[in-house]
Every structure is written in C-alpha cells, then in structure tokens.
C-alpha cells in the first residue's frame, strides 16, 4: 500500500512539466558554467535575480490571466505608463519618496487594468482584441498626453536610485568586494507568495481556475465570473505598476518607449512554465522556473557565442516548443474526438 502510494507519487511527479523544466535549467546552467566558471556564483545569481525581478512580477500577472483562459498583451504598456507617470509626478511635486512612487504607479496600473477588466467582463470582448486595442490606447495616450521626453539619471529623484541600490543581505567575496541580495528579489518572492495564497486558499483563486477550466460551468456553479475577471485584470495592472517602478530603479533612467515590446519574452516565460493558454492549468512554481530559464538563456547567448540578434528567434522558439509540448499532451489525453483549435 505504502509502496503503491510512493509509485503513484513518482508517476505524478514525472508527469509534471516543472520537473523537466527544472532538469533543463540545471543541465543548461552546468553547461554555461563549464564555459564561464563565474556563472554559477552566488553573486551572478543575485544579479540575475535582481535584473529579472521586474519581468518575473509581470510574468505572475500574465500567469494569472492565462490561468483564467484569457491573454493580456497590454501589461507592458501599463507598466511603462505607471513608471513614467510616477516619475513625472515625483519630479513635479518634489516628493522624493519611493512609497509614493509605488502608490502612483500602482494606482495608474490598477486604473488601466480596470479598463481592461470592464471591457472584458461587461462586453464579453475577446481578451486578445481588448488588450491589443487598449495597449495601443494606453501607450499612445501616454506619449501624446504625458510626453515623449526621457528622464535621465540627473533628473531622476534620488529615492529611485537609493531603492535600486538597496540590499537586504550583504555578503563579502574573498577579495573583499561586497555584493548583496537586492530588495527586488524579496518583493518578487512576496508577490509570488501572495498570488499563490490567493490562488490556493481563497474562493477568488478557485474561481480563477474554474473560469479557465470552463467559463460556463463556473458561472453555473455560482462563481461571479464578471467580478473575478475584473479582479484579474486589475491585479495584472497592479503588478505591472510595481514592475514599472522596479525597472526605473534598476536602470536609473526612464524612456516612455521602454518595456513595451517585451511582452513576448514574458509570455514565453509563462507558457514555458507549463501554463496552458486554454486555461485552468498551471502553477506559480512553473512560472518562476520559466522566468529563470528565459533569463538564463538571454544572459548566456553571448557566452555561447551567439550575438544578441538571436534573442527574438529563441524567444519565439521557446514559445512554440513549450506550447507544442503542452498542447500535444493535452490533445492526446483528451483524445481526438474533441477538436481543439
């Protein structure tokens, strides 16, 4: 009996995407380390974590949307809107406080996300077309109304720079140089935990899974679909707002045309993590590993000897391969009677 149980557990584990992804990450990391021994150092890992935290936070948002069977491609436009508006407000008002920056950025994010949520939940417009339209509106409006001028490092309020340099844990290398664990990583972990808690332990979270599984069934079983959808898109906006502030603090510069155009990498990371776009299936751990994989791949292209021109190609390839694997598996398991588009 006990033995049976154990076998079942192992079988279940073998079916999970996360395990394979984890193995791929390990093998690839070892390979990269053999090319450049500094790759697997703690310092480099901290650095990678810091620079990919913003992307990771956006990925959590995309993960939530995909889980509900939708898609959002406006989150980058929301992130840059939040960032650029927050930076401008801080400069104009003279308030030099990072919490105020987060407040403004998230406010903008939630407001723009609410527009998406309203359109999708009230008018039942396809999520792709809604967010394609709103992405264009948000970004166009930002550039038209707020402006197109970049904010350079000298104009940037000090709180962003201080926040970007903030470490929660400082370690010293053998040669006496300090390096640290950035607060960005802590924020990312907290948000990932929060999302996990919402998804696992609240009715809202179960509703998100339910909508993704079958929207009609969810409605009939008493979930308020419109309300849940509205929440999802607001939440994505909120996360995008946070990612926007992290991004500006990281690069100490704000250009209103940045971030937009990186949607594909983020979506790639999420689908690589095993989340199905048809909804209802996926884990936050998978998403985190997807982000890790894409980050490692991006950062190692040059090490492997490929120029950065290969970036788009690999992102596309990752999406196609990972989606193909999950789609093919589910197609086989459901059987050929139910035709999937």
């Amino acid at each position, binding site marked *: 009996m006990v033995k049976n149980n154990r076998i079942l557990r192992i079988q279940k584990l073998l079916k999970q995407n996360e395990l394979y992804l984890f193995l791929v990450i390990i093998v690839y990391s070892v390979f990269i380390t053999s090319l450049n021994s500094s790759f697997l150092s703690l310092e480099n890992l901290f650095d990678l974590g810091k620079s990919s935290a913003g992307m990771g936070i956006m990925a959590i948002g995309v993960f939530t949307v995909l889980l509900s069977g939708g898609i959002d491609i406006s989150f980058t436009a929301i992130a840059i809107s939040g960032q650029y508006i927050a930076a401008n407000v801080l400069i104009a008002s003279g308030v030099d406080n990072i919490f105020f920056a987060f407040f403004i950025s998230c406010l903008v994010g939630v407001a723009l996300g609410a527009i998406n949520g309203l*359109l999708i939940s009230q008018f039942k417009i396809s999520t792709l077309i809604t967010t394609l339209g709103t992405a264009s509106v948000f970004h166009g409006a930002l550039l*038209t109304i707020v402006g197109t001028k970049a904010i350079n490092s000298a104009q940037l309020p000090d709180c962003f720079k201080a926040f970007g340099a903030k470490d929660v844990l400082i370690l010293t290398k053998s040669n006496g140089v300090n390096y640290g664990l950035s607060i960005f990583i802590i924020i990312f972990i907290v948000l990932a935990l929060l999302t996990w808690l919402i998804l696992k332990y609240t009715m809202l979270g179960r509703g998100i899974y339910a909508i993704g599984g079958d929207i009609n069934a969810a409605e009939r079983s008493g979930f308020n679909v419109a309300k849940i959808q509205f929440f999802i898109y607001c939440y994505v906006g909120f996360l995008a707002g946070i990612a926007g502030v992290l991004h500006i603090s990281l690069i100490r510069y704000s250009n209103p045309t940045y971030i937009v155009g990186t949607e594909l990498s983020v979506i*790639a990371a999420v689908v690589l993590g095993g989340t199905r776009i048809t909804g209802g299936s996926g884990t936050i751990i998978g998403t985190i590993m997807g982000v890790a994989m894409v980050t490692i791949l991006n950062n190692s292209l040059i090490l492997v000897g490929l120029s950065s021109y290969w970036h*788009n190609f690999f992102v596309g390839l990752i999406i196609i391969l990972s989606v193909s694997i999950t*789609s093919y598996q589910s197609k086989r398991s459901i059987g050929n009677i139910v035709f999937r588009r």
Partner: protein
Amino acid sequence: MGRNYLLGKYSKHSKTLTLFIIMISVFIVISIFLPGKFLTIRNFQSMFSQIPEFGLLAIAVMLAMLTGGIDLSIVATANLAGIVAALILTKFTFPQIGGYEELLTIILAIISALTVSLICGFLNGILVAYIGVPAILATLGTMGLFSGIAIIITKGYGIIGFPEKFLFIGSGTILLIPVPMIIFILCALVAVLILNKTIFGFSVYMLGSNPISARFSGISNENLLIKTYMMSGFFAGLASIIMISRVNSIREGYGSVYLLQAILVCVLGGVDPSGGSGSISGLIMGIITLQVLQSGFNILSFSPFFKKVIWGLILILVMVINFYSAKLSQKSIKRLKTN
C-alpha cells in the same frame, strides 16, 4: 423555418448596410471638414497606394479569423518574405546585366518571397491543426521566430535599392490606376470566389462556426486549417512584395502598425473573431473607412502616437457596438419566435 431563414438573411444584409452607411458618413464628414484637401486627385492616389498593403494583410487575418483562429504572424511573415526577396534583388542584380536577366531575377525574387510566406503559413497550420496549439499562441510564437530569423539575416540593418523594373509593382500605374490597386482588386476577387463559390470556402465557414460538426460532416479539419493558414501566409507574402517595391527598401519590424490595423479592419468589417462569419465585401468597406480616416488624420497632421490612441479606441468601440447589436438581434429573434 422559412421565417428564421429570412431573418438570417435580413440581419446579414442589415450588417452590410450599416457598414455601408458608416463608410459613406465617414467619407462625407471628412470631405466637409477638410474642404479642398481631402477630395483631391493626389490624395486619392496616395490612398490607393496604401490600401493594397494592409488590405492584403487584412484578408490574411480574416481567413484565419473565419476558422475561429487568428494570425498574429502576418507582419513578421511579410517582413521575412520581403527580406528574402530584397536579398535576391540586391545580390543578383548588377547594372551590366541585360533586361532579360533582370526580369528573371525579379521573378525569382517574387517566387521566393511567396514560397517563404507559404512555408511560414504551413508552419502555423501544422502547429494549429496537428499539434493543437491555440492559434493566438502559435502565431505569437511564430511571430517571434520569423522576426528573429529576419533580424539574424539582416543583423537589424535595412536593405535598400532595388532594380527600376521591380519598383513598377509598387509605384507604377496602368491606365492611371496604381498597380498595387490592380493586384489588390484581383486578390480580393479571387478571395471572394474561393470563399463563396468553392467547397473549400464553404468548409472554412463551417469549420469556423462549429469544428466538431464540421469534422462529423466529413471535413478534414487539419487539412483545411493548414490550407487556410497557408493562404493567409500567401496574402502576407503578396503584401510584402508590394510593400518593398513601394518604399524601395525593407527592414525588420517594417509595417508593424499594420497588425493592429489589419485586425481592426476585420473587426470593423464585420468578421467575427470567434469564427464562422464575415465577408470580403464587409472587409473592403472596413478598409475604405479606415483609409479615409487615416488620410484625414494625415491631412490634420496628427502625431503617430495620437493615431495609435484612435485606432485602439475604434477597435474597442466597434467591439462594444457589436456586443450590443448581437444582444438586440438575439432579442428580436426571440420575439419573432414567440409570436
């Protein structure tokens, strides 16, 4: 039964009628507000030269939408095809070779561009039909892949300077009509014939409205999807040839605005994004409406960012209107049925 049939017919015509009214009113409003600027021969010529490019891309998106999918990779496909054609045109043509060889090179370039676009479409089709990837993600992935290949080939640089004769496709005129317009009209006619007069066309509509019943009525859904996505790619390839010969250059990322506009035109032209309904005539009215607006904005010299806002707003507005009109027609059908 008969009544329902008539009602269906009526609602189909009323949709076309609404589109027609919108098109005419946009035309009239723009003409009145921009006197002496909009209604000029030069303006019409420039409108006619822009319509074919995104018109062909819109047909490509429409084909995918009719099956209930979408093709986000059209612009990337067009870019890749255009770059391959441009490479052939610039690498193989030398000033000293004669007219005959030059013509051969041009034909070779066109054939290769179309082949590349067909391959791109085939890949999309395989992913959607056989592997069962949702069309949004499949074409989003191939969009990245194709544009990635284009970047790798060109290293991000532009390719400029094609033979004089090739430029005729994009900027020449036959009997005062721009050549791209002629190509577009021919393509639209072919698309109408395929969609309305062939079994293939009928099957596409059937697959879009209900894939399971299509399968049970003996249609090979997989085959049909692959063919549809290949056609989609083919139209994108044609658009790329017109595009590169009109501007005499190509660069990765060229014409990326067309993606939003192509989807916008489809939705505006009454194509249902969930599949099964939409007509070329509606699409063309959508194209004309958009082009009239576009040229009005150009005359008013709106910034590209502001235009972005407007295109997005129109897309959403049309979808909201569709939502309400669908609700209304459902109500009227219910009322008729109870009577």
